[in-house]
């Protein structure tokens, strides 16, 4: 893989990490309202997959989607302004943390209902085939979605109709506070998808290079064969389900164990060991991203709130 591409992926993971850390701080300061579901720990999944897409491929995600929104190319300023509920936000302050949309960038949300993005992704796959283009749709959802009817209806239809959709299950081991093995009769989630006659695999979502390899291959095959595919990326969120999470369902030791497998430090070590970057490069990326986040926060702070008349806009086209 090209060195610049590797550095760029590191850059994107650090951007997500620092963006989310800052968002968590700002939430506690009362700058951000509503729910805030942080992506910290899962960065390798968004970056590995989205960096393997072409710009005109589509992405749809669920409500822990800041990382995917940033990786699909939405400016951090506009994501932060959306968290602030400002009119300069990517969804003009109408969406919030769970509903980031940027149609120009082909980032199609931001869905707040578990599993419900999957039928939408299926419909986008249908539209791609209808228009006879060679795009693909990448659909992210969590382990909780596997137990929703939408999951099964979508996979069945996508397989039946040969739709170019890559379904990516980010299994972070907990649906809110309920462990996967307390919710799924089969805890190996890729097996839940297996009966729809599509290719399934399970990968280590904490290892960027493993994700990248599976993503490149998966996306290439979906595009080539016009067939859906299912990848389970086993990962972990270090923070609570949302900011208001008592954490009663898992131990500190468990979190610490997963933090030892941190995708960002692991990848930084790889870059250093392979002489792809120096400690100086890594430090300067960190500093550069801190500046980007500072800029995003100032932009959000300084932006205007939506005006009253905007309350009534865009209910109808």
């Amino acid at each position, binding site marked *: 893989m090209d060195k610049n591409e590797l550095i760029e992926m590191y850059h994107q993971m650090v951007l997500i990490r620092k963006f989310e850390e800052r968002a968590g701080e700002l939430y506690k300061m009362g700058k951000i309202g509503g729910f805030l579901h942080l992506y910290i720990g899962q960065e390798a999944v968004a970056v590995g997959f989205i960096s393997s897409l072409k710009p005109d491929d589509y992405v749809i995600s669920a409500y822990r989607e800041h990382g995917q929104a940033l990786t699909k190319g939405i400016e951090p300023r506009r994501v932060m302004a959306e968290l602030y509920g400002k009119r300069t936000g990517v969804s003009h302050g*109408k969406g919030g943390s769970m509903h980031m949309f940027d149609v120009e960038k082909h980032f199609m949300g931001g869905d*707040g209902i578990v599993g419900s993005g999957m039928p939408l992704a299926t*419909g986008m796959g*249908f*539209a791609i085939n*209808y228009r006879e283009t060679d795009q693909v749709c990448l659909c992210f959802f969590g382990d909780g979605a596997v137990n929703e009817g*939408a999951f099964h*209806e979508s996979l069945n239809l996508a397989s039946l109709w040969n739709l170019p959709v890559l379904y990516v299950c980010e299994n972070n081991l907990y649906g809110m506070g309920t462990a996967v093995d307390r919710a799924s009769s089969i805890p190996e989630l890729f097996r839940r998808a297996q009966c729809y006659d599509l290719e399934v695999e399970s990968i280590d979502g904490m290892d960027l290079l493993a994700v990248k390899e599976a993503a490149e291959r998966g996306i290439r095959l979906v595009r080539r064969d016009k067939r859906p595919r299912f990848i389970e990326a086993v990962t972990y969120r270090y923070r609570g389900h949302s900011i208001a999470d008592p954490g009663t369902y898992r131990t500190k030791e468990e979190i610490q164990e997963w933090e030892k497998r941190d995708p960002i430090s692991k990848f930084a070590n790889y870059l250093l060991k392979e002489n792809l970057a120096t400690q100086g490069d890594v430090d300067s990326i960190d500093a550069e991203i801190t500046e980007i986040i500072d800029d995003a926060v100032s932009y959000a702070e300084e932006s205007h709130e939506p005006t009253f008349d905007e309350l009534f806009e865009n209910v109808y086209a």
Partner: protein
Amino acid sequence: MAVMMYRQALNLALREEMRRDPDIFIIGEDIAQYQGAYRVTEGLLQEFGEKRVLDTPISEEAIVGVGNGAAMLGLRPVVEMMTVNFSLLAMDQIVNHSSKLRYMSGGQIKIPLTIRAPQGAGMQLGAQHSQNFESWFMHIPGLKVVAPATPYDAKGLLKSAIRDDNPVIFLEHEMLYTTKGEVPDEEYTVPIGKADIKREGRDVTIITYLRMTAVSLAAAHALATEGIEAEVIDLRSLRPMDTEMLVESLKKTHRAIVVEEDWPMCGVGAEVIARLQEAAFDYFDAPITRVTLEDVPMPYSKNLERSAIPNEEKIANAVRCVVGRECRDIRGKMLEEARQTREELEEEEEEEQEVTNVRHHNAQDE
């Protein structure tokens, strides 16, 4: 001008629109090979092929979801819910997605989606297959809801729904499919948001829609023989609602009733009356009343089903009440008669039980 059935008018609208715009496609349960549960999509597979007319599995959430997703990318899906009762399985897609994707995205997305759904009672289909859900959909900002009463309106409104850039819930009535009416040969549309005066009158306004339009017209005809001239307004479009036309009519007649086949609580009548008392209270000469479906799940038995649904007699009686003529408590009278019948039946049953008990006793003695 051709005379055709309601379902044929719908079929023609679909055909003409699909010929006009290649971005329109149709999906639903048994709409293609089977030709549609109510034959609305008859022949479309043959004319437009498998790419544009697709049978789906019985997966309502995914059917509407595919419609939403395809609409997000600019196609114009027409999805059929085999009946409105099954749309409940797709409510998340309709309420959380069709109606909200535009707003949540700050206006970046359009959902030009038409969801057709037959509804209504009258065929002894029982509690789960006889419902009307217009008020559920009307409640939701971001959706439009239309409900045509005639073949003319069915064709014109379906064309408008398909051309609309918003999600439109298109409600059809199962008992209307084979009713006939005139449909012009030339191209026309019926605008969404405009009610229609189906009969002019000076004494009272009957506000209604869908199948109850024909029933109300029959009642108006009967009332004319008593010297009462009722104006019958067919709402046609439930969201947006043509309040202006209702107010204009009320300024003339000063009296009104609402006739609907759905349940009374939070129903269409409740909405119409709220709007009229806000906009035209000074013109009222009498309270506006409602004739609705009885507030019960639909029973199977023919006589019970029939007595739960509004009919000509109930409508005419309600009109007589609001115009100050002699009127009756129809339900009260029916309940009284029913109580007598039931007492007799229960007495008979008791007697039969006694005879059985005596026989049983005698048999044991022997």
